[in-house]
């Protein structure tokens, strides 16, 4: 595969720029998009650097079209992706649903902004439900929630492999802070880290005679009978469950002896980790659990940890009014641990907020 980065190097760039470089390094052929803050610079950087490597870009007439164009491009065997945010993410749910229905290796970068509606152009964690379970389906999607520029780079590369391996749409869920801020990261070509990139393959227009040389390539998003659809969705569910073991990622930090477990995801995990250290200095045994994949959710891993550690309390912290907490509660139903919350919809959360909250409930 074409080397993009060359020698592994340190860089000091925005998250959006990191996405563009990672997509190039991952061998993405094309991006289809429509402008919306705070993801615009993903497009800007892609359009600036991709022509040097003969990759392509098309700005479509809206987000619905951008999403469907990715659906088309991947069927022709091209690694393609899009990036969006907020109301753009809302509009893209229809093509994302098609990608679920047709099992297309679509990759989308979501840089969450404030909502509802146009909300703010700045930051939130309010697109969790939308990204994980949007559309009129069952949320057969893979969602990586990143917290640093290094993770944005790493998981953008990984997203392409996960998509082309398991054929579920894959999302890298960032936010406006991660999109716009500058911080250091290491950029590399995947093979230099021992990562083998999956070569994309056409899904349609294949050679040979149908029924003789091969099965028909049948990509369907509508069925005549409810039994047909039922069988298809149940098969998806089975495939989804089967791949979950390999795809689930999470991080534990000082959980072993914790009296209180802080649950956070994405950029808020940074504040949560710092809060754990501050609280430990104060003599409060705090620990931290972070799902990196929000879909599939590390539910069993969380349950196992809780039953082993037996904390007195759980605190869920997020920049939304409980979208992440709903995922958590759903997974730990039946556990008998009091659950406290720190919800700041559309607002950043810093270590101080979490420390104060823990002190107020402990």
């Amino acid at each position, binding site marked *: 595969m074409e080397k993009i980065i060359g020698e592994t190097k340190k860089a*000091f760039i925005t998250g959006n720029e990191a996405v563009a470089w990672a997509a190039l390094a991952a061998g993405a052929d094309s991006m289809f998009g429509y402008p919306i803050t705070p993801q615009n610079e993903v497009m800007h950087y892609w359009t600036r650097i991709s022509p040097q490597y003969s990759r392509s870009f098309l700005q479509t007439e809206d987000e619905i079209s951008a999403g469907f164009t990715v659906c088309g491009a991947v069927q022709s065997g091209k690694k393609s992706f899009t990036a969006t945010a907020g109301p753009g993410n809302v509009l893209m749910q229809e093509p994302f649903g098609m990608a679920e229905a047709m099992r297309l290796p679509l990759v989308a970068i979501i840089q969450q902004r404030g909502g509802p509606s146009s909300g703010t152009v700045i930051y939130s964690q309010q697109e969790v439900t939308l990204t994980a379970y949007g559309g009129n389906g069952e949320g057969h999607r893979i969602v990586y929630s990143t917290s640093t520029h290094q993770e944005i780079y790493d998981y953008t590369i990984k997203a392409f492999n996960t998509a082309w391996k398991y054929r579920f749409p894959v999302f890298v869920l960032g936010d406006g802070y991660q999109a716009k*801020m500058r*911080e250091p990261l290491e950029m590399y070509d995947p093979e230099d880290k021992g990562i083998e990139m999956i070569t994309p393959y056409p899904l349609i227009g294949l050679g040979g005679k149908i029924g003789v040389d091969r099965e028909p390539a049948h990509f369907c998003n509508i069925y005549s009978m409810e039994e047909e659809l039922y069988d298809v969705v149940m098969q998806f569910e089975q495939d989804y469950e089967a791949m979950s073991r390999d795809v689930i990622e999470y991080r534990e930090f000082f959980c072993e002896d914790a009296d209180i477990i802080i649950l956070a995801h994405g950029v*808020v995990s940074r504040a949560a980790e710092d809060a754990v250290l501050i609280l430990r200095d104060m003599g409060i045994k705090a620990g931290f659990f972070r799902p990196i994949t929000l879909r599939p959710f590390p539910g069993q891993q969380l349950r196992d940890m809780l039953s082993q550690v037996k904390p007195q309390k759980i605190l869920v912290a997020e920049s939304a009014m409980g979208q992440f907490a709903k995922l958590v509660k759903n997974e730990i139903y039946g556990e008998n641990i009091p659950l406290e919350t720190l919800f700041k919809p559309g607002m*950043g959360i*810093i*270590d101080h907020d979490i420390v104060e909250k823990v002190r107020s409930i402990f």
Partner: protein
Amino acid sequence: MSLVRIALAGEGGQGVQAIAEILAEAAYHEGKQTIYIPNFGIEQRGGVSIAFLQVSDQKIGAPKFYKADVIIALSERAVARTAMYSDENTLFVHDSGFDPSPEDLPPVSKQVLGLPAIEIANTKLHTKVFNIIIMGAVIGLTNVVTFESAREALEHKLASKFENDPRLRELNMQALEIGKKMAEESLWEGVEHNA
């Protein structure tokens, strides 16, 4: 160096994002940990623009902060907009070309300082290096990066402009130096004043 948190605020177009970016670059090249995040509204032009900059020797957690060590507000609206980021440890700096109204100033701060950056830019240098004076002032107030690495980062950022017009290099470097000195002197005066 422990964590230093700086908020730079001005009218859109005054160049606060540009200097925050250059300062962050300089810190990065010094091997420090740094995060720079722009706060931007929905205006295409104008409006108050704030740059949040953090520099430290240690890994930095949350990209945002509530209370800054230093705030520099370059317009009256910017004073009102950034007052909430001030607490008893904050050095609150505004341009002395205007007198901020008392209700706009932060209720709590360590010190409020006026710097004649706009005046000096207009009378001694050039209006377009106003933000570089402020960049120098940030260094004078915080030592967040060395003067030398700030010069290098500035050189790097404006390389093509300097190539087209070498006089610009002189002008920018002068502005950086004047800003730094102005801030250092004001701090001393402030100390005397307090004493």
